[in-house]
């Protein structure tokens, strides 16, 4: 088994399963906070997936996408927090 196969057959599936698990939390909630946290985590995992995928497909430039993802995920969290604080109620 070479690195490629290792990443392809072991790492990526683990990451995929992780994201599905997180999605379960997203689905369950119960608070909107949980969902926001889950979304944030999903994106973080997405960054990991991109990193591994850039290795698999030998395209280092994909890593830049992960930076964009990280940046925007952060903004999303900030916005949700902003909203929730203003709204002051659990929806």
């Amino acid at each position, binding site marked *: 088994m070479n690195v490629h196969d290792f990443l392809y057959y072991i790492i990526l599936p683990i990451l995929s399963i992780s994201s599905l698990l997180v999605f379960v939390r997203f689905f369950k909630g119960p608070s909107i906070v949980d969902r926001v946290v889950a979304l944030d985590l999903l994106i973080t995992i997405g960054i990991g997936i991109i990193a591994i995928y850039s290795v*698999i*497909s030998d*395209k280092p*430039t994909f890593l830049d996408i992960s930076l964009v993802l990280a940046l925007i995920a952060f903004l999303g969290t900030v916005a949700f927090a902003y909203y929730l604080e203003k709204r002051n109620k659990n929806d």
Partner: protein
Amino acid sequence: MEILLAIITGVLYASGIYMIMRRSMVKLILGIILLGNGVNLLIFVLGRITKGKPPIIDSAEKVLEGVYADPIPQALILTAIVISFGLQAFAIILMKRTFKVLKTDDLDQLNTTDEDS
């Protein structure tokens, strides 16, 4: 894979259409977004998909050769995404303003302009 993508596209269309037929304006906009995503996916899939070969010429090369993804649908979708973003942003604000003026987001109550006056 294409079959799954086709099904997902169908689901996106169906969901989008279902949502835009709800009474809540929020759902209308959610529906619009879903529909927009569905359309993008449709163009993408119909442009034929290719894995792991982005339409980027290697730094050492001068032409793109072999198997590669069709860049045209990508460019089209990019344009469509940006346009949809503009429209969606506008729609969201329209919703806000409408709620502010009409005090409701129930679309069924926005039915006076069709009446004769």
